[in-house]
């Protein structure tokens, strides 16, 4: 599908810049142009598609659905799956959390949504397809949903309501089933497209600098680091690799889009994919700014339990990937 991008990169580097295919610089440049163009195109397609899907399933609709229906355990799956199509901005996490609590949705289910929504988002999916291919992307998405579900179910066992801040407990006591009908979007799809497109451009503008820098660093590493270089440090026999990279990843939120291209090179140089996926989940899924915001609604202890359980689930999925992939 992307052969023509490769041909363009070859033409540009080998014929226009007149560099030999043997040179490190040529390899690095070729990789840089090929990856940048491919990822840019994929990001546009994925963000646009997710924008369309999301315009049919806004978060209010998800909340009302979960609030009104008795789902016999399926609510964890539904909350987690809806998290995939709902874009997540950590600054919305507090109103979102309260909105769910108010609708009488159990805390565990709310957590399922809160975990998957940032973990499996449109930018991560676009980058994943570009860097690791469709198969790995599907595995990532499915495991993201499963991880959200599992962590939500585990968290529900802790009876966490007592760790909410007092005013949230108050909201909880007054919660009710959402009866207000959701105002159905009347605007036809083709009229919404320009708005969705504007969002695509805005998201791209935000991540592109990081992606380009990430690919540039990746390109350099690709050309200069010998294959198998990392194997001696982070191979599958090192049992501590997964937990170490996961914990290391948690504070690195803002540069997720720049880190992914670098990680791809690490994988191509011998780091096991499961270890790499655990790292990326840590980067994308948990962040310190989000924790600071959540302090308004949760006690520090609850945030600690929340992060702890998610970290544990990420580490376990890292090990599982290393075994099955």
């Amino acid at each position: 599908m992307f052969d023509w991008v490769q041909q363009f990169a070859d033409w540009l580097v080998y014929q226009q810049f007149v560099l030999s295919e043997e040179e490190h610089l040529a390899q690095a440049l070729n990789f840089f142009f090929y990856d940048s163009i491919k990822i840019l195109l994929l990001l546009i397609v994925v963000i646009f598609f997710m924008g369309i899907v999301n315009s049919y399933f806004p978060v209010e609709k998800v909340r009302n659905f979960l609030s009104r229906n008795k789902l016999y355990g399926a609510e964890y799956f539904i909350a987690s799956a809806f998290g995939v199509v709902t874009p997540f901005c950590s600054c919305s996490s507090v109103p979102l959390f309260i909105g769910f609590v108010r609708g009488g949705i159990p805390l565990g289910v709310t957590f399922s949504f809160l975990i998957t929504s940032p973990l499996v988002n449109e930018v991560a999916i676009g980058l994943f397809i570009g860097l690791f291919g469709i198969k790995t992307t599907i595995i990532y998405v499915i495991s993201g949903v499963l991880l959200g579900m599992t962590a939500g179910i585990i968290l529900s066992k802790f009876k966490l309501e007592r760790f909410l801040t007092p005013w949230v407990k108050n909201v909880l006591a007054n919660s009710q089933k959402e009866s207000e009908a959701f105002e159905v979007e009347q605007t036809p799809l083709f009229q919404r497209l320009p708005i969705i497109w504007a969002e695509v451009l805005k998201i791209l503008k935000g991540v592109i600098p990081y992606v380009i820098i990430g690919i540039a660093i990746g390109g350099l590493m690709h050309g200069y680091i010998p294959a198998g270089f990392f194997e001696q440090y982070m191979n599958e026999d090192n049992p501590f690799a997964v937990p170490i990279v996961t914990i290391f990843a948690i504070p690195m939120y803002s540069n997720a889009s720049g880190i992914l291209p670098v990680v791809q090179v690490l994988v191509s140089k011998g780091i096991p994919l499961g270890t790499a996926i655990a790292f990326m989940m840590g980067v994308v899924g948990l962040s310190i700014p989000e924790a600071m915001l959540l302090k308004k609604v949760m006690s520090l202890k609850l945030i600690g339990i929340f992060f702890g359980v998610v970290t544990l689930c990420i580490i376990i999925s890292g090990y599982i990937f290393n075994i099955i992939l």
Partner: protein
Amino acid sequence: MKIIEILGTGCPKCKQTTAVVEKAVEELGLNDVSIEKVEDIMKILEYSVMSTPTVVINGEIKIKGRVPSVTELKELLKQ
């Protein structure tokens, strides 16, 4: 008199939205408006929105969960 409220917890997107609102008001030359940034989470919840930034004009939610464009906002303000 138009009352424009921008609901948001002070994130970058909310600041961008405020800038867009101010620009739209300036370009339309409106004097009869008040722009109010609502950062208090309790007040935001009164509108029962779950995604910010949200733009409220005269008590009615117009834009939810995204940064609007200046043109879009001008259209909304002309109504």
